[in-house]
């Protein structure tokens, strides 16, 4: 027995080591090859000469714009659904269980399926309907930032619903009782006691989806991301460039692989740092809120 114990402990430790080695290798390679490229000019200029020179500003801008619009779609729906599941839904009814199951399944759907759904539902159905109703000619019924953001929002809904529901449920029952005993209505109890305490948890879900949204390519592939744009998008009905997609484009469509490579590494580094910064921000906020609410 003792021998097996040792072997098992060693094997599990080795697995961790291998994973870390890969992670370190990936990050090291990207940092080493990308660090030289990332400069102020790289961050603020547009790509030129078939993406073999210039910068990635339109892609950074597009990513930020996309993620902002996504958040506007995502948060109200996600948080409201979380509130419903935690506070209003009959907790052990079959319907509630089914809804939870559906939310979990939604999280398991491959992101390319969401992308196709976005084309079918948002562009061809909702977009066309809007254009017809408003008497416009192909404004909404084409791939654009608005629909890409909406598609990305749906992809991230399960995360936000689940984290919101759990954050709300974590609020101690005795605080709810205290609120009711003071004559609070359900709405006041939620708004003044539950949500302030659940806020950090909800925010964590939001930032997780933002950092995930910044890196997802499949859902925006057909719904609005552009291969290359000579202008910066101004309206949500414009197409846009995006970091993840730009990485894909540069690595597969470049006319000169050798010349593109440093730019490619630089772009990946920027995307990684952006995601890292968002996650760090989420953790910081959570720690601050925890301290404030003593939990």
């Amino acid at each position: 027995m003792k021998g097996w114990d040792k072997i098992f402990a060693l094997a599990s430790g080795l697995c961790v080591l291998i994973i870390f080695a890969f992670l370190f290798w990936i990050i090291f390679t990207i940092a080493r090859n990308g660090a030289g490229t990332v400069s102020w000019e790289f961050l603020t200029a547009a790509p030129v000469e078939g993406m073999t020179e210039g910068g990635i500003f339109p892609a950074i801008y597009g990513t930020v714009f996309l993620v902002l619009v996504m958040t506007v779609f995502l948060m109200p729906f996600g948080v409201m659904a979380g509130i419903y599941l935690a506070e209003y839904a009959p907790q052990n009814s079959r319907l509630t269980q089914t809804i939870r199951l559906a939310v979990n399944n939604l999280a398991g759907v491959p992101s390319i399926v969401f992308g196709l759904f976005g084309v079918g539902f948002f562009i061809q159905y909702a977009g066309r309907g809007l254009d017809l109703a408003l008497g416009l000619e192909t404004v909404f019924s084409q791939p654009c930032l608005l629909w890409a953001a909406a598609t990305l929002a749906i992809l991230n809904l399960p995360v936000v619903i689940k984290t919101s529901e759990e954050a709300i449920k974590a609020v101690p029952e005795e605080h709810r009782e205290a609120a009711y005993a003071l004559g609070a209505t359900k709405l006041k109890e939620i708004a003044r006691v539950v949500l302030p305490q659940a806020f950090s948890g909800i925010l964590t879900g939001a930032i997780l989806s933002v950092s995930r949204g910044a890196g997802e390519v499949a859902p925006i592939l057909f719904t609005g991301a552009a291969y290359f744009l000579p202008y910066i998008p101004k309206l949500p009905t414009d197409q846009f460039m995006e970091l993840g997609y730009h990485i894909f484009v540069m690595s597969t469509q470049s006319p000169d692989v050798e010349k593109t490579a440093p730019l490619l590494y630089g772009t990946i580094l920027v995307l990684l740092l952006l995601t890292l910064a968002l996650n760090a921000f989420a953790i910081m906020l959570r720690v601050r809120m925890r301290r404030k609410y003593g939990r």
Partner: protein
Amino acid sequence: MEDKNKNLIIQTENFQLFYGDKPALKHINMGIIKNRVTAIIGPSGCGKSTLLRAFNRMNDLISNARSEGRILIDEEDICNKDTDLVALRRKVGMVFQKPNPFPMSIYENVAFGLKIAGEKDRARLVQLVEKSLRQAALWDEVGDILDRSALTLSGGQQQRLCLARALVIEPEIILMDEPASALDPISTAKLEALINNLKKDYTIVIVTHNMQQAARVADYTAFLLLGELVEYDETRKIFTNPTDKRTEDYITGRFG
């Protein structure tokens, strides 16, 4: 009980409560007298907290609880489907077993009941918060740290803060569910002294498993056993000359 029929603020009429099919309270008939302290005693699981929580309909929060019979407060049946629970709970305040201040400042905790009722006048809020903190004998300790988190207070202070929070909306009745069970003896003594002071303005119903406490603070005492009201009388009578054998067994410590 010589003044049993006058000044009844709460009257239960054949009140019963079930958790699913299981009866938790059986045919309770009792009247609670205004501006007196009434204690409900009994062993764990006898239904004393359930009875207390029936007076402000907190049992509604338990999904499988259902009741029969009536409870009249100021002659008005509060067990109706269309009873205004907000109004009821503003009239019948509550202090819980475990101190449960909100994770907010001391000031915000006390002001909570006023703010959810729509009070916005800052001067009035400040004035009422001070008044109830004084009533709860906490002002001298927290008067100059109102912005500090309520969670930094000691357990005894937190419980008095919860009392102040309940007092600020000027209820007529205050329900206390084993309010001292999480407190040390000194904090308990302070709370009991407070209860004694408060009864000139409020009617107090206190659930306790501590019989000495009931003897110290209560004018009337009800003994509950297995969901049944066994005996209800002046505290002195209950503790010196109980009518029912089961009451005697309980107060002499033969079970419980």
